[in-house]
């Protein structure tokens, strides 16, 4: 590997933070699977193919949760580690700070709380109705 050590070589531009992900808007699915539990053998796509990208948004997995993360926005320094680590893309970010959790998809795994360097996230018992 060769390294360009010439004087005056431009410094790489600083990495931009990714655009924050907002809580998913409830758009109408292009592939209506609302009554999928009633589908018989003929209704499914050939070979169980999923024909709409990103349709896992419609699959609410929040009900699996026994612990729920709570964010202290004051302590958040905007490092985005929780956002990167969250396996369910459930961290809601506004103005480069974690401000909330998408509770329809957060499974309560606790990875965000484990990774948060400022201890801004803690896991609490999820009290269900």
């Amino acid at each position: 590997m060769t390294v360009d050590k010439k004087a005056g070589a431009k410094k790489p531009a600083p990495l931009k933070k990714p655009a924050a992900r907002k809580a998913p808007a409830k758009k109408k699915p292009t592939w209506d699977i609302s009554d999928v539990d009633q589908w018989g053998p003929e209704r499914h796509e050939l070979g169980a193919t999923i024909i709409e990208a990103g349709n896992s948004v419609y699959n609410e997995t929040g009900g699996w949760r026994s612990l729920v993360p709570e964010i202290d926005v004051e302590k958040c320094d905007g490092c985005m580690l929780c956002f990167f680590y969250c396996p369910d893309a459930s961290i809601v970010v506004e103005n480069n700070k974690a401000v909330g959790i998408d509770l329809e998809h957060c499974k309560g795994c606790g990875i965000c709380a484990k990774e948060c360097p400022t201890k801004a996230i803690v896991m609490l018992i999820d009290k269900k109705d």
Partner: protein
Amino acid sequence: MAITQSEILAVTGNEAVAEAMGQIDPDVVCAYPITPQTEVVQLFAQMVADGKVATEFVTVESEHSAMSAVIGSAAGGARTMTATSSQGFALMWEVLFVAASYRLPVVMTTVNRALSGPINIHCDHSDTMGGRDTGWIQLYGENHQEAYDNCIQGIRIAEHMDVRLPVMHMYDGYVISGAIGPLQMLTKEQVQAFIGPYHAINPMLDSENPVTVGPFDGLHGWYFEHKVAQNRAMDRSLRVIQDVADEYAELSGRQYGLLDPYRLEDAEIAIVVVGSTAGTTRMTVDKLRARGVKAGMVRVRAFRPFPYEDYAKALQHVKVVGVLDRADSFGAQGGPVFLEVRGALYDCDPRPQVLPFIYGLGGRDIYPDNIEQAFAELENAAQSKRRVSSERRYLNLRKD
């Protein structure tokens, strides 16, 4: 209107199939060589190298990878083919189910060869008979001509919208694959017009419409419904196989069916057989007929789906049916074809007797005498007042 080329070529079975693949000119072929299929892949690779086909040829490091690459290619939206034999087929095992359950219309040539061990490279049907529940359509060819014809028809069957299942077509290792026999070919233009352009369903390479192929089905569970859909497609394929054969007959002058009956109309005894041994059996039937024995034969063409109603119709008037299996099902009542035929005839009244014969394992020769011996057993059983034992009979087994 038969517009077949009049020229008759002398080719090996493998050459016949390589020519068929060349005329089909698939988008992708992923294959690994194995005796006795090697010649198919070798000749086809030469066509790719010579620019005679536009195919992307993917060389892989094993048959497991071959079938995996085939699945990726077919899911991507390409007309995809491969070929294998024996241990290679066995190594594909787990992925064969995936190809079928993803409903990918792949066509695979399988040259029948024994499975180890002892290691043996000669013909029997244990490889593909073991794969009868993988969800693939199985067509067994008799000779060079049918190997070529089945390869081309397989494309139309697999890609038919009522089916969308992979098709494997078989012919006997060495007996057909390596021996020279007659072949009449269509022109490449005829084959292209017959198979038509490829229509992919939900292809992964359509970036405008992204899809997920092969998702996990563990949360809500529609696995059961998908399996039923697969089996319904298998049922529908019976009609499609016949329709494609009829259309192919118009083109080629060669008529095929789901099964191939011979002198059955007034037969009292009959043999059911798969593959190249049908030729020897047909000859034996003629010989017995000349002696006044009412002998007949059915050759199996479609084994999956198994047209059990057609077998019942074809064999219901026969007194004793002998089923010649070139593979065994250890611990079962008989070989795989025996079990199917016996099951198919169960609802017949009166019910014909069905006797299991095993022959030709590991390439053991089968002579006309052996088939006559089988017919003699059927005659004895037909004359016997009581039902005879349904134990396996072995043809040309060395004496203990």
